[in-house]
């Protein structure tokens, strides 16, 4: 009987999960590999591919080309994958958590909270703790942004939770409130900052991978990789949450605990991204949606696939950002917006009725 059921099951399974999972991840890995190679091969400086291969093998160690490949393009590509993946993952987490396919770190105020904390670190940091800021600035900004995002999300959570249940509508509205409050405080910081701080702030608010170096890539890897590894354990809970919190509880999910973990993971991913590259929009919406459109909504596949796709999308946008106007650089936020915003509107007009 058992044998029969298992054989029967295997036949039934042929169209579904395991093979789809492997195929999707394989295709996306190839996409990552290709964008990664392109990102190392392309840039304002023309370096022949053969020479790049030699450089990667350790030749020409002191040449300017080697510096460009090893100290600019490599860390930048790595940072692009990490932050793109983090943005896409946090988008997927928030969309499931808030049961709203249009939820985005920007919409629910996490980005604004993270940006406020990072701006505070830039402006107030050298007044209050100058030695600390200069010694640990690479870590200070991401950690401040993470804490800011966490505070913003926790505030939202407290505002919109009654009797242990969270109302999504209240949460989205509170998100708008928290977001604009944090935005105002950031504006206030801009008015009390001196010219140099204001310049730092303005450049950073544009969003760019331009400042990438190995120390930033290391910080990003240390903080984001744990999020990548932890998130897939939430896949079942996220799937169940699509039905509603009560239904998820009935299906055996520890709703309150899992929600807290999701909020913390999303805040960490967004905070690190915001701190190291500024607010970059639309990756968090575009990547998870493209995945859902093509392979379905099961988070066991959506979470890892979004990480891969978000990473390659951001690296791709960054290749454009540093080549289309070379040797000048186009702000990456403008590019993701140019591609992402029409996609968002198209999504709104065609797909929304199926999500209702």
């Amino acid at each position, binding site marked *: 009987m058992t044998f029969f059921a298992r054989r029967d099951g295997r036949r039934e399974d042929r169209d579904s999960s395991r093979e789809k999972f492997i195929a999707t991840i394989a295709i996306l890995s190839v996409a990552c590999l290709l964008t990664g190679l392109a990102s190392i091969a392309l840039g304002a400086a023309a370096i022949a591919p053969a020479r790049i291969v030699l450089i990667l093998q350790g030749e020409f160690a002191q040449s300017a080309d080697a510096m460009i490949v090893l100290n600019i393009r490599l860390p930048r590509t790595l940072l692009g994958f990490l932050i793109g993946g983090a943005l896409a993952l946090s988008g997927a987490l928030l969309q499931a958590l808030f049961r709203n396919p249009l939820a985005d770190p920007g919409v629910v105020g996490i980005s604004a909270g993270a940006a406020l904390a990072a701006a505070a670190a830039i402006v107030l940091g050298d007044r209050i703790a100058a030695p600390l800021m200069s010694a640990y600035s690479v870590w200070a900004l991401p950690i401040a942004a993470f804490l800011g995002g966490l505070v913003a999300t926790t505030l939202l959570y407290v505002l919109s939770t009654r009797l242990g249940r969270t109302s999504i509508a209240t949460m989205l509205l509170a998100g708008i409130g928290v977001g604009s409050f944090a935005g105002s405080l950031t504006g206030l910081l801009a008015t009390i900052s001196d010219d140099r701080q204001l310049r730092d702030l303005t450049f950073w608010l544009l969003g760019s991978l331009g400042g990438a170096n190995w120390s930033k890539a290391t910080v990003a890897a240390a903080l984001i990789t744990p999020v990548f590894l932890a998130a897939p354990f939430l896949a079942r809970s996220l*799937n169940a949450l699509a039905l509603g919190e009560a239904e998820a509880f009935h299906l*055996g999910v520890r709703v309150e605990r899992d929600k807290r973990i999701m909020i913390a993971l999303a805040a960490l991913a967004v905070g690190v991204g915001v701190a190291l590259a500024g607010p970059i929009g639309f990756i968090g919406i575009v990547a998870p949606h493209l995945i859902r459109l093509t392979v379905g*909504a099961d988070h066991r596949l959506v979470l890892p696939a979004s990480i891969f796709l978000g990473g390659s999308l951001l690296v791709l946008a960054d290749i454009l950002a540093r080549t289309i106007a070379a040797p000048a650089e186009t702000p990456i936020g403008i590019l993701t917006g140019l591609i992402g915003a029409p996609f968002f509107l198209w999504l709104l007009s065609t797909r929304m009725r199926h999500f209702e």
Partner: protein
Amino acid sequence: MTDAILTAESLTYRAGSSVLIADASLELAGGRMTIVIGPNGAGKSTLLKLLTGELRASDGGVILLGGNLAAFQPWRLACIRAVMPQSGAVSLPFTVREVAGLGVDGVGRSLSRGEKSALIGRALETADVSHLASRLIGTLSGGERQRVHFARVLGQLAAGRTVAERQILFLDEPTANLDLRHQLDLLDAAARLAGEGVAVVAVIHDLNLAAAYADDLIVLNNGKIAARGAPAKVMTDALMSEVFRLDVKVGAPPPGNIPFIVPSRRAAAPQI
């Protein structure tokens, strides 16, 4: 009653100053189908939420299989009891098969993929939604969606049975959007589960259906249990008048020549 799977003792639930459930005590036994009826606002959904653990009672408590309901781990609880909700909105574009699979996925972690797949397939068939399996849940009609959720709870119970022998199924207005045939199909399937030893609790508005399927009727009025027992004993002219404010004669055809159709429990439910 020694066979009780779930016992509620003087449940009271207050929201602000209003008392939604007052001093409700009941036992739910395996193998029996209990149907809760009552006018709008009587507290039927609140009672169900207290019994499923979704809400915590202000006073009184719920004992499940000898243990305090509030102390159960959600996963353990999900193996014992399944709940079919009133509204079936799904926020993400899941397919019908994936939604039905949610019940099996969460509870049946120790099952092989083949076993899970077989359980899901059987549940889809019982709920008559196999032909919709690859459709997106958002594209279905309200009734079809309701049947998918029924398939989901069937799958959850089947997966849970590998861990828990005595189970309980809650259905909150499961027939609200269904045509008459699917109403009967669903309640037949629920009755079969009761026949296999599951305690089934359903909130149903249609008094004729309630009368046809209930082993026990619970009549709620203003948050209190107004009557409880076999349908023939409980459904009286006096109760109809007192609880539902209806001036009717139970069991009498309408005056004049109006055609009327009263569905009744099918003698031999089709086996799947």
